[in-house]
């Protein structure tokens, strides 16, 4: 009897403590989420993908561990060229660990480069149209992973750079690629070459040559280390194309001052 009374008292005190900590916990939850922490959404679709045991483990605070194990499984699927299974596993891994840049990056790379080429050269599919369609779908999947990765990690210069490369190499969308490279260049930790890559893509975009010229002009003025042969060549071509007056031409000046 005494034990029951104590138990009731303890539970009542726990309830009171719960009421007292509730506002603090809600504020903490909000500040953790606004710092992009605990952003993984563990819903029922994930439960169907990864199985009950892994789902319970993920719910119990072992998300990263489950993600690592699924990633190993995805690697095995890659060795077996089981592309469909890889997509499902990449979905699960990135859902479990949305802040791990490497998972988004490699998932996109596998889809847009490896899986798409395998689909393009699929000997079991005689129709070229269907092979090309499958290839295109894998490109789209690569794009999907990178876009989701960026949505979860908006400050990642690396993911924007990868997006630029994908748009440039697989979609031939130079304008969008330029925007992605320039966005990457504006983020902390971006390598210096990303800005140049953005300028090169701008130069290839009809109607954006002036932007490309202005950017390359700035890059050129940044110093000797930025005056790469490709920068000089492209700047010279743009000066010609845009009819820049000879007095304002950098490349012209360069040749005159350093024959």
């Amino acid at each position, binding site marked *: 009897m*005494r*034990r029951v009374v*104590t*138990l009731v*008292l*303890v*539970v009542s*005190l*726990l*309830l009171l*403590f*719960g*009421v007292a*900590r*509730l506002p*603090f*916990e*809600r*504020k*903490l*939850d909000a*500040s*953790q989420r606004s*710092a*992009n*922490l*605990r*952003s*993984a959404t563990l819903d029922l679709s994930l439960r169907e993908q990864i199985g009950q045991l892994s789902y*319970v483990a993920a*719910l*119990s*605070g*072992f*998300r*990263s*561990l489950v*993600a*690592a194990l699924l*990633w*190993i499984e995805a*690697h095995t699927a890659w060795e077996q060229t089981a592309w469909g299974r890889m997509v499902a596993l990449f979905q699960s891994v990135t859902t479990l*660990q*949305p*802040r*791990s*840049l*490497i*998972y988004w*990056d*490699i998932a996109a790379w596998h889809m847009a480069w490896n899986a798409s080429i395998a689909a393009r050269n699929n000997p079991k599919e005689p129709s070229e149209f269907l092979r090309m369609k499958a290839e295109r779908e894998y490109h789209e999947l690569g794009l999907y992973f990178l876009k989701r990765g960026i949505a979860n990690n908006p400050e990642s210069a690396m993911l924007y750079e990868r997006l630029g490369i994908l748009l440039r190499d697989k979609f031939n969308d130079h304008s969008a690629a330029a925007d992605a490279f320039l966005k990457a260049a504006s983020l902390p930790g971006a390598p210096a070459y990303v800005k140049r890559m953005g300028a090169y893509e701008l130069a290839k975009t009809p109607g954006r040559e002036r932007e490309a010229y202005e950017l390359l002009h700035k890059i050129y003025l940044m110093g000797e280390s930025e005056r790469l042969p490709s920068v000089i060549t492209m700047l010279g071509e743009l000066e010609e194309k845009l009819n820049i007056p000879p007095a304002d031409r950098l490349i012209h000046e360069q040749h005159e001052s350093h024959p």
Partner: protein
Amino acid sequence: MIRRIQTIAASTWTELIRLKVFYFLVIFALLVIASSFFLAGFSFEAEFQMLKDIALGAMSIFSALLAILAAANLLPKDMEDRTIYTILAKPVARFEYLLGKLIGLMLLLTLAVALMSLVFAVTLLLFTNYKVHLSLAEMAGAPPAEIASAVAAIKAQGYDANLFSGGAIILLKSWLLAAMTLLISTFSTSAIFTTMASFAVYFIGHLQATARDYWLSSADPGWFVKGALAIIALVFPDLQALNLVDDIVAGATIPLVVLAKTLALGFGYIVVYTALAIAAFQTREL
């Protein structure tokens, strides 16, 4: 009073060490070292990522298991051996006894997490050096700037100060679990029940935030469900709030204010659970 608590803490520590609980460290070390070899074949970023995932995941599992299993056995073992009666027959207050037990266990958990962190840090350091060595061999003849950039990229994946915050959060969570298990064991009549109940609280605690959000949302699932959700949200601890290790592993930086608030919440739970355990133990018939 402090001396008596210290003595009980020291004897609890010795008792737990004699139970050879540190054998699990050998398993941990093997797991971390083996995974670093097993992962060869992935890109180096993925290798580092998974090494961290596996090591910190294993640290979380081992520390939680150690906290619950050791705390669940503290009181039943002393009762079975009848040492509790000898201790409490002396001028030792019940709260001193319980505090001493908890502090002894917390010290053991601190040592366990510190040793696991050390094994992890050393493995990560050796792994980083190995990868640097490989890169230098592969890039022989490359321009020095490219070599420096490659080495910097590898080192950036290695040990960083954020992983230390991860270790601190794992330790705090294990202390919380120890205090919570001790509270349950003050009512329980067997170690098995305490262990089962603690694991149940552990799982429910990870769903508490979901229950709380649903309870406070505008959804109306009926008064019974709403009441049940309210009880879960108010009685059980929010263990998801202490689940920042997954983000730390992913390379996220925890803002200092958020880290401080998270640690404050954890300590708040420990203080309240310990106080309730003491209050319940005072009235318990031995």
